[in-house]
């Protein structure tokens, strides 16, 4: 599914509930569903906080990638030069971290010491186990997060 946002932060809960419903129906583990809901929430909050000109999108897809069941979450938004620069910096730090959980703990420990903590992005790797990549094209930032998932076995498969 692809959802567009235009300063509609009130839609966040509806989107979150939809992700819970879809994952609960199709995935094998409640824990995986919780991890993906955390990830979607963090990405949505970043879209609402940092999107410029009201144009932002979120895609959520459960698919087969190289024959493996995979979740793919993508966001796309336009942002100011300052926010793009901060996002690049935090994404590079998160993607290159050899131990994302340690980075997450370090950022929590310094909470309140800076504006825009970057905690949400680090959490995608540290807590939700997602691999991250990103592209900046002019003033548009596209983030992609993905990981393998275990589909729920349907009655007819047993």
């Amino acid at each position, binding site marked *: 599914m692809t959802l567009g946002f235009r300063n509609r932060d009130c839609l*966040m809960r509806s989107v979150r509930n939809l992700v819970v419903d879809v994952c609960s129906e199709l995935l094998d583990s409640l824990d995986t569903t919780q991890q993906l809901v955390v990830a979607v*929430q963090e990405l949505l909050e970043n879209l609402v906080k940092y999107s410029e000109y009201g144009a932002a999108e979120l895609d959520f897809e459960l698919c087969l990638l190289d024959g493996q069941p995979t979740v793919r979450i993508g966001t796309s938004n336009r942002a100011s030069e300052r926010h793009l620069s901060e996002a690049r910096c935090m994404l590079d730090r998160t993607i290159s971290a050899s131990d994302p959980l340690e980075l997450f703990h370090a950022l*929590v420990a310094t909470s309140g010491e800076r504006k825009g903590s970057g*905690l949400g992005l680090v959490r995608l790797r540290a807590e939700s186990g997602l691999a991250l990549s990103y592209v900046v094209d002019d003033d548009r930032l596209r983030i992609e997060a993905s990981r393998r998932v275990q589909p729920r076995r349907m009655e007819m498969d047993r």
Partner: protein
Amino acid sequence: MTIADVSGEVFSTRSELDGSGLRVKLTGCLDMETAPALERFLGGLSRALESLSVREIEFDVDGLYLMSSSSISHLAVWIKRLKAQAPASRVRFKTNPNLAWQRRTLDSLRRLSERVVTID
């Protein structure tokens, strides 16, 4: 001094003094819209603790279904302040075993001070 609880539709708190302890039940979802209510609640809690002889604060998060990063930051700041102002205080998080994210997320707060913060 009374503690001003939050009574929102999406997020609420219920505080109860119990001897030398304070039990705070957090219920609902902490997202970017409810995080400011948590921040205000923690500010009020800090002021109340100055006049109450409370040594242990228990946060019962059994009915808390989501905590986004802004609320993690608010709790981290509050714990650091508590540790500095009332080093003898203890904070305990009572988690829901069916919500595995709680232990993962709260572990980062325990690491702020293992002497002060425990997770059950």
